């Protein structure tokens, strides 16, 4: 039986982590490669990098990081942030990433999912979804709306409908982020996660709201998520990945305990 995956998420800007990560006697580490190594050694099942830089030299810097990460850790990792063409995807994959995450770019040009899946296989294309809870309406029957540009722009697109379309277009998995829960550390949006996960046939990674191991337990059981994204709770060393996995394992959630 598959293990539920625990996936730390690292935000990178200009080649550095946006928030220093406290490791080893609380020394701030801003190097994404070092952070990836730490999490690999702690038992992370996968790592997600989001490049939130918007400058032109971004690509070169990010490709260099991807290369160094690929030489350092031997688990899958994905890279997202402003990747909008097959050629850009190819560069990131050749540099060593397993998966490309597309978000705003896919909403604007859904064809990028189809083209990416055709060029590299569905397993390479992860759809990032930023979702906001709204009043259900005819245009948004699920009551969950897609937002883009990091949550700043509403799209009028129904999240459930978009998830299904992305699957049809060849997305291999969905990273589902609740804008409402993001940053609260009050727990994942369980209803949203269960809704999307039960209506698509591809794996769903829950994102946004993790603050305590109980939150992961909830989303991996009641929320029906296949994986859980975490950030602050490990970046600030409140918990290690190993502690979270032990907690889940002891409560009957299958996790990878040997690494």
């Amino acid at each position, binding site marked *: 039986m598959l293990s539920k995956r625990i996936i730390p998420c690292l935000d990178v800007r200009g080649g550095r982590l946006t928030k220093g990560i406290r490791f080893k006697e609380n020394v701030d580490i801003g190097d994404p490669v070092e952070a990836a190594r730490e999490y*690999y050694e702690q038992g992370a099942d996968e790592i997600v990098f989001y490049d939130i830089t918007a400058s032109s030299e971004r690509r070169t810097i990010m490709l260099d990081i991807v290369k160094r990460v690929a030489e350092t850790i031997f688990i*899958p990792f994905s890279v997202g942030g402003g990747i909008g063409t097959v050629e850009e995807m190819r560069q990131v994959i050749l540099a060593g990433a*397993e998966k490309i995450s597309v978000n705003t770019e896919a909403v604007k040009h859904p064809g990028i999912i189809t083209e990416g899946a055709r060029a590299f296989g569905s397993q390479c294309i992860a759809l990032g979804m930023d979702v906001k809870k709204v009043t259900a309406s005819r245009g948004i029957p699920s009551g969950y709306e897609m937002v883009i540009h990091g949550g700043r722009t509403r799209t009028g697109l129904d999240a459930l409908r978009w998830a299904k379309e992305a699957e049809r277009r060849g997305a291999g*998995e969905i990273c589902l982020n609740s804008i409402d829960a993001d940053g609260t550390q009050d727990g994942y949006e369980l209803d949203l996660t269960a809704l999307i996960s039960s209506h698509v046939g591809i794996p769903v990674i829950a994102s946004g709201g993790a603050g305590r191991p109980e939150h992961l337990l909830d989303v991996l059981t009641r929320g029906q998520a*296949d994986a859980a994204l975490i950030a602050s709770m490990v970046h600030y060393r409140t918990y290690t990945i190993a502690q979270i996995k032990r907690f889940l394992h002891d409560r009957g959630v299958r996790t990878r305990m*040997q690494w």
Partner: protein
Amino acid sequence: MIGIVDYRAGNLTSVARALDKLDQTCVITDDFRLLDNASHIIFPGVGAAGQAMANLRESGLNGHLKRWVQEGKPVLGICLGTQVIFERSEEDDTPCLGIVPGEVKRFPADLREGGQRLKIPHMGWNGVSFREHHPVFAGIPADAEFYFVHSYYPAPADAAWAAGWTDYGIRFCSAVARGNLVAVQFHPEKSGRPGLTLLANFCRWGGCDAQ
């Protein structure tokens, strides 16, 4: 030197990076003469069986692969590389290399485990029950897990080829081994320490499955 067979089936550099980490020299090439000189052959691959077989035939590497296995060179298949050494794949109904008797089947659509519908592809970390006493699987803890991503699985016609089993709604063969050939459905190059152990074992292996 380890030869990695390049038949334009996905990104082969991650295998090379894992070998670098293990201080093994390797070459990624479609030139059979370079591969002839390699002590070991790794046959990886990601993608679809039909396209992979077309590329292998076009480059002539299909015949060389069979020859290397017959000649006794240690050969390691990974993922799609493992699937195309069988006789046939249900993916695009593709005739394959026929090195291992049996075929490659698609996971049934209504796969269930504990009442829950299972998703396809089988993607993520799962355990492998290895046949005991094979040098390539030595030193791997019993509860180790490996990284899988696939929608089709190997089904050897003769159980004697099966060297590892994995559960995903059904119990399928996730590793085969006989003589100088080992082939795995998972990705050892992306499976952390247990995967690196397997690759290191392979690079040290002389090609005989007896202890």
